[in-house]
C-alpha cells in the first residue's frame, strides 16, 4: 500500500463541512418561491445569517421530516429577502416546525462553526464557542493511527505486571465501580507550538490554540481499580496502552495513577466519542493530552519507565545544548484572548468585551490581566465562576475601542503564584526547537480599520 492511497482511503477522513444531513431540496425550492417576492432585506451582514429567513422550512403536518432530515439554507444561492422583521410576522410563526427527533442537531445557521482538520489532528474553533465547555462534536482530535471502531462488548482492559491479581475487566465491569465526574481542560502539548518563532505564528486562535478543549469526564478513579488488583508497593511506573493501530503507549508515574487519574467512559454526559477514546480512556488532569491514552486496553505496573517511542523520540523537549527534557507532563499556566482574535474585524467604535480562556495544570486560576497596549500596562479581568482546578476559566474585560491601533494580550496567574511568561522568557531558556509546552503570552494586533491579526512578542 502506498502512502497516497492509504491517505485517501482508510486513514484520512475527508472533512464533511457540508453534509451533516441531506438537504431537502424540494422543501427549499418551495420555500424560496414563497419568500421570493418580498422586498425587505431583514438581516444585515454577510455569511449564513444573510439567508436566515430562507431556511425556515415550515412543513405542513404531513410533511414532517424524518429525524435525520435537516432543511438547509441555500448558501450557494443569492440571499432571498423575506418578511421576518417587524412589522412583519416571521414565516416560522405561521406554520408548525418539525417534530421532536431521536438525536438532536444544531441550527443549520451554525454549521460554519467547525473544527479545522489536518491529517492527524483537528482543532477546536475557540473563537466561536462560549463559556468553558466544548461540545463533543467540536472537541479537538489528535490521533496516531486513526480512530479505531471498537465494539465495546469486545473491548477489554487488562491490568497486570507488578500487581497481586492480574485481572481482565469488561467495559461493563468498569462501569460497575463507584463513578465520579470531573471537569478538566484537555490540551495537546504541541498546542500553540507555532508561537515559538515569529515566522511560524498561526493566523487565528483556532489554528494556533485549537488543540484545547474542555469536557466533563465521567468514569472510575483509577485508584479504585488499582486497589482492586493490589499494586505491589515497589511499583513506581505504569504503562498505559491503547487499542488503536499504533497501540499508543506511555509510561505514567504511579503517584499520578494513584492520585487523580480517571478511567473515563463518558464526556459531557454521553459515551466517549470514538475520536476521544470510546469506549474507555485514561484521564490525567492537568497533564499533556498524549499521555491520557485513548481506547485504553492495558495497564502494566513496573518499576521503571518503558522508554516508549512516544516518550523518547516524540513528546520530549529539545534544549539548545542538544539535551532533551523527558516526562514533562504538566501543562503550565496559560491564557489566550479568543475575542477579538486573529481573522476577525471589530465592527465599530464603542464598547467591546475582550474575552478569553485561562487554565493551569497546577491548579486554579487566580488572576488574569489584560493589556491593550502590548504589555505596557495591565488591568485585571473578571473571572467567571466556577473557577475549577485544572479547568478552563473564562475571563472578560470591558473595552472601549476608539478606533486606534491596539495590541491585545492576556496574562494568567495560577494558585501556585506562577505567572504566565512572555514568549521571549521561554525562548531564552529553551531556545526555539523544543516544539512542545509553549505557554507564552499571545498578542493580537488591532488595526485602525478594526482588522485583527496575529502578532508576536
Amino acid at each position: 500500500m502506498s502512502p497516497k492511497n492509504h491517505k485517501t482511503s482508510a486513514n484520512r477522513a475527508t472533512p464533511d463541512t457540508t453534509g451533516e444531513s441531506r438537504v431537502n431540496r424540494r422543501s427549499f425550492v418551495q420555500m424560496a418561491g414563497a419568500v421570493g417576492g418580498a422586498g425587505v432585506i431583514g438581516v444585515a451582514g454577510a455569511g449564513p445569517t444573510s439567508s436566515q429567513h430562507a431556511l425556515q422550512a415550515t412543513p405542513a403536518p404531513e410533511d414532517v421530516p424524518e429525524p435525520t432530515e435537516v432543511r438547509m439554507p441555500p448558501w450557494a444561492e443569492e440571499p432571498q429577502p423575506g418578511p421576518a422583521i417587524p412589522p412583519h410576522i416571521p414565516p416560522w410563526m405561521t406554520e408548525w416546525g418539525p417534530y421532536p427527533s431521536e438525536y438532536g442537531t444544531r441550527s443549520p445557521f451554525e454549521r460554519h462553526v467547525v473544527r479545522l482538520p489536518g491529517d492527524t489532528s483537528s482543532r477546536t474553533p475557540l473563537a466561536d464557542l462560549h463559556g468553558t465547555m466544548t461540545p463533543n462534536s467540536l472537541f479537538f482530535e489528535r490521533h496516531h493511527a486513526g480512530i479505531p471502531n471498537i465494539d465495546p462488548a469486545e473491548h477489554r482492559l487488562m491490568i497486570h505486571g507488578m500487581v497481586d491479581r492480574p485481572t481482565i475487566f469488561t467495559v461493563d465491569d468498569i462501569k460497575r465501580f463507584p463513578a465520579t465526574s470531573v471537569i478538566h481542560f484537555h490540551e495537546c502539548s504541541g498546542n500553540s507550538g507555532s508561537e515559538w518563532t515569529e515566522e511560524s505564528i498561526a493566523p487565528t486562535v483556532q489554528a494556533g490554540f485549537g488543540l484545547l478543549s474542555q469536557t466533563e469526564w465521567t468514569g472510575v478513579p483509577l485508584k479504585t481499580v488499582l486497589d482492586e488488583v493490589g499494586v505491589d508497593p515497589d511499583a513506581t511506573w505504569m504503562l498505559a496502552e491503547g487499542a488503536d493501530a499504533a497501540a499508543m503507549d506511555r509510561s505514567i508515574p504511579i503517584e499520578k495513577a494513584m492520585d487523580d487519574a480517571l478511567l473515563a467512559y463518558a464526556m459531557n454526559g454521553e459515551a466517549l466519542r470514538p475520536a476521544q477514546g470510546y469506549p474507555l480512556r485514561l484521564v490525567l488532569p492537568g497533564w499533556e493530552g498524549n499521555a491520557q491514552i485513548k481506547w485504553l486496553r492495558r495497564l502494566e505496573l513496573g518499576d521503571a519507565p518503558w522508554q516508549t517511542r512516544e516518550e523518547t523520540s516524540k513528546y520530549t523537549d529539545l534544549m539548545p545544548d542538544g539535551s532533551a527534557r523527558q516526562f514533562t507532563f504538566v501543562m503550565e499556566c496559560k491564557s489566550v484572548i479568543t475575542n477579538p482574535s486573529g481573522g476577525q474585524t471589530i465592527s465599530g467604535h464603542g464598547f467591546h468585551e475582550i474575552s478569553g480562556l485561562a487554565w493551569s495544570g497546577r491548579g486554579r486560576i487566580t488572576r488574569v490581566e489584560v493589556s491593550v497596549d502590548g504589555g505596557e500596562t495591565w488591568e485585571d479581568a473578571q473571572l467567571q465562576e466556577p473557577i475549577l482546578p485544572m479547568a478552563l476559566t473564562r475571563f472578560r474585560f470591558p473595552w472601549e475601542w476608539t478606533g486606534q491601533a491596539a495590541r491585545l494580550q492576556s496574562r494568567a496567574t495560577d494558585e501556585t503564584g506562577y505567572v504566565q511568561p512572555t514568549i521571549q522568557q521561554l525562548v531564552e531558556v529553551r531556545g526555539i526547537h523544543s516544539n512542545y509546552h509553549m505557554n507564552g503570552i499571545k498578542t493580537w494586533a488591532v488595526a485602525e480599520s478594526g482588522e485583527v491579526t496575529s502578532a508576536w512578542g
Partner: protein
Amino acid sequence: MLGDNERTYGFGHPATEEEIAGWDIDVKPDGTGLPPGRGTVEEGRKLYLEYGAAWHGAEGEGTDYAPALVGGIGSLDTDSPKKTVGSYWPYATSLFSYIRRAMPASGPQTLTDDEYYALTAWVLWANGIISEDEVMDQDTLPKVVMPNRDGFTSPDPRPDVDNTGD
C-alpha cells in the same frame, strides 16, 4: 495469588498467562519483553523496500508522508536539529517495540517477530549503528548502544522561567 477476600468489589476475571502473553507487547530497555526470534540486515532490507520505502524513502531519508529514519547524528545542538532514530532515539529496544506495535502502516502487528527483528536491524544498520553482518535477537538488541543514549534529562525542571510577572 491472594484470595477474593482482598478484593472490595470482585469485578473482572483473573488474567491467565496465555491471555497476558497475547497482549503484552511492550519491551523494556533491558530487553524484558523481547520475543524469541532473529533477523538480519539483508532480510530487513527486503522487508523495508516492501513495507517502508514508499513512506520513509528508499534510504530512510523521509518523505512528505513519514519522518526520516536516518541522519542528523550530531545535529541536536545546532540551529537545524534533525531528530531521527539514529540521532535522537535513546534505546534500540524502543525501536523494535514501536515497529512491532505500529508498523507497517498497512497492518501493524501482522508480521512475524523474525521480520520485526529484521526491520529493526535494517534501520540500525542504515544509521551506521550496527554492521551489515550483525543479527538482532533478544540478546543482541538490548546491547546496542544508541548515539543519543544519554541525551535525555528528567525529572521535569519547570517552572524554568522568572515567573513573578512584573
